[in-house]
């Protein structure tokens, strides 16, 4: 197992109280696999990965649990060890490439820096490696564009440059936080294709964080659905889309407008995501759930497997029959719409 996360919790101390940004998350990622983490604003998906990478501010942050990378707990590793790992064994690309690239240094300088930090090579060697990566991510005339500054690149090209920077030291794990959200749809398609191709070539595992269910369906092997700092459902991708077992997932899938069919009225989940300062008691989704009953208001449902499929986990008190029925209804409606 490349990465194993056990009972991860990240709490932020603020003036208004403790914000429980991540509250008991478990998952694992195998070599060469892609895990998609889906959720809306405030679900905790970004903070989960920032915590694994040790990128949270140290002050006022309480972290507990384990993040075992090749057996080593990243949460207890010292800062020097983390610096060795970051950019080298685990790399991260962020949502907005303009704010993540240093605007006063050329792309080439930033790439070479990434190489020389972790590899014992000369500047010439580092530069050669950087050009190789820029070519691999599809930047034309890479050796000339090395000396350009980020503002001279378009959004799509900047994202590619970030991907190049992340892959330059051949990491085992790449964490991509909303890598396509700030991009146009055609550029998005290029970047998604690129990531899949590079995964084949370099063999890295990928964690892709996104709110776009389409991107997840096309890139992930396994999916984690997060809600209010916890995991609502986790399953291999086909099972999540064809047999979802959580009312939140049903709401998410039903609320998507479609490209290939006309939907009369979109499913709307009433209300909005809860405050993480004072999350609801019991199941955090209960105030918005159309299937709520008494137990949901007081008892937090555990994340457990479905009886006939232990790889499919869900945290909901509803009985399995109802869930199967609702999942089938959703699927039938989707197919009927497509005609």
């Amino acid at each position: 197992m490349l990465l194993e996360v056990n009972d991860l919790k990240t709490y932020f101390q603020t003036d208004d109280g403790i914000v429980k940004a991540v509250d008991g998350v478990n998952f694992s990622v195998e070599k060469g696999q892609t895990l998609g983490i889906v959720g809306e604003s405030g679900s905790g998906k970004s903070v989960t990965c920032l915590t694994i990478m040790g990128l949270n501010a140290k002050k006022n942050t309480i972290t507990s649990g384990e993040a075992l990378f090749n057996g080593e707990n990243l949460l207890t590793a010292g800062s020097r060890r983390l610096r060795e790992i970051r950019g080298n064994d685990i790399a991260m690309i962020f949502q907005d490439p303009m704010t993540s690239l240093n605007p006063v240094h050329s792309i080439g300088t930033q790439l070479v820096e990434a190489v020389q930090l972790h590899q014992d090579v000369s500047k010439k060697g580092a530069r050669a490696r950087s050009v190789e990566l820029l070519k691999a991510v599809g930047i034309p005339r890479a050796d000339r564009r090395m000396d350009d500054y980020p503002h001279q690149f378009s959004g799509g090209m900047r994202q590619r440059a970030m991907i190049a920077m992340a892959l330059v030291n051949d990491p085992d794990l790449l964490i991509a936080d909303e890598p396509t959200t700030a991009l146009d749809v055609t550029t998005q398609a290029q970047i998604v294709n690129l990531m899949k191709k590079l995964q084949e070539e370099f063999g890295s595992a990928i964690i892709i964080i996104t709110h776009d269910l389409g991107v997840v369906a096309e890139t992930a092997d396994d999916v984690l659905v997060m809600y209010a700092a916890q995991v609502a459902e986790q399953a291999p991708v086909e099972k999540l889309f064809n047999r979802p077992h959580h009312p939140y997932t049903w709401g998410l899938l039903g609320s998507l407008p479609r490209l290939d069919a006309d939907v009369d009225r979109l499913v709307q989940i009433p209300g909005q995501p809860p405050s993480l300062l004072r999350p609801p008691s019991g199941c955090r989704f209960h105030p918005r759930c159309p299937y709520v009953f008494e137990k949901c208001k007081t008892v937090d449902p555990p994340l457990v497997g479905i009886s006939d499929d232990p790889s499919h986990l869900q945290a909901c008190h509803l009985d399995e029959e109802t869930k199967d029925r609702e999942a089938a209804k959703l699927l039938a409606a989707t197919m009927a719409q497509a005609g």
Partner: protein
Amino acid sequence: MAEDLLVVENVKKHFPVTRGIIFQKQIGAVKAVDGVSFSVKSGETLGIVGESGCGKSTLARCIMRLLDVTDGKIVFDGRDISNLSRPAMRPIRREMMMIFQDPYASLNPRKRVGAIVSEALEVHKLGTATETKRRVQELLEVVGLNPEHYNRFPHEFSGGQRQRIGVARALAINPKLIVCDEPVSALDVSVQAQILNLLEDLQQDFGLTYVFIAHDLNVVRHISDRVMVMYLGKIAELAPKVDLYEQPKHPYTGALLSAVPIADPARGRARRPIVLEGDVPSPLNPPNACNFHPRCPRFQKGHCDVEDPPLPARALAARGGRVPKAGNGRPAGRTVGSVLGRRCSFRLSAGSRSYWS
């Protein structure tokens, strides 16, 4: 038969680029909107899609007269508003309102919600203070907010709620036309559904006409009656939504649609996107003739780089519209098959009804 509420004729908006400090010499222009013509019927929703830099937001601002057009005509409710003075525009501004993209930036953080929603009513001197307050509370309820939150500040609301405030504000003076500039892009998927459903309900209840601008093709399909695809300041294709989505005729539309990820693992992975090479050119220096030709997978040398194909007349539905003719007198842009409106001279083979086959 519904009337045309809005007719846009050959509108251009060029932003000059100047050099020099004391004497400013114009050395070029950003051709944000470069000759756009279309009409919108009363009660319909026209969706406008395109990628960044295609000119859709600039076009929205031109329609609203927030920007003055460089050339062309905007006819609203039968009146040419393209060059009206500010006082003359004022009564017209009661008929058209706008909803903006960023629910955090589009509400004045120092004003209470009641004041924000009633601002238009006050500017146009409609109603007494009591009547205004009642109207605002009514509007808050209509958009699904608690009317008792009249005295709260924007920061006390979530993104979705703020967008509802924006909708209430747009409705306050009973406009005929609402221009929505990416109203759901900044919202989470579940909240997006709430706002889209709300906009549809309001359209039915109040007989509104929408111009709905977005880059999310799924959302545009859902809400629009007809859809217009823009590329680098010009219209690439304009068609009823089912026609556009099921049988796109312009290669750019085809590429756009093929690039959208599908929320279904089996179909998504089988999807073969048409990958366009390179980046969108700069509007400072758009390609000549057909502006899509450098990236077009169906490019025909000697044709697409020589002649700019105009949209067929049927798509324009403009008053006194004429069919633009090519040099030799034949109507330009005519192709085999039922082409409603696409600006492309690529000839479909006889019998082939869509770009896909």
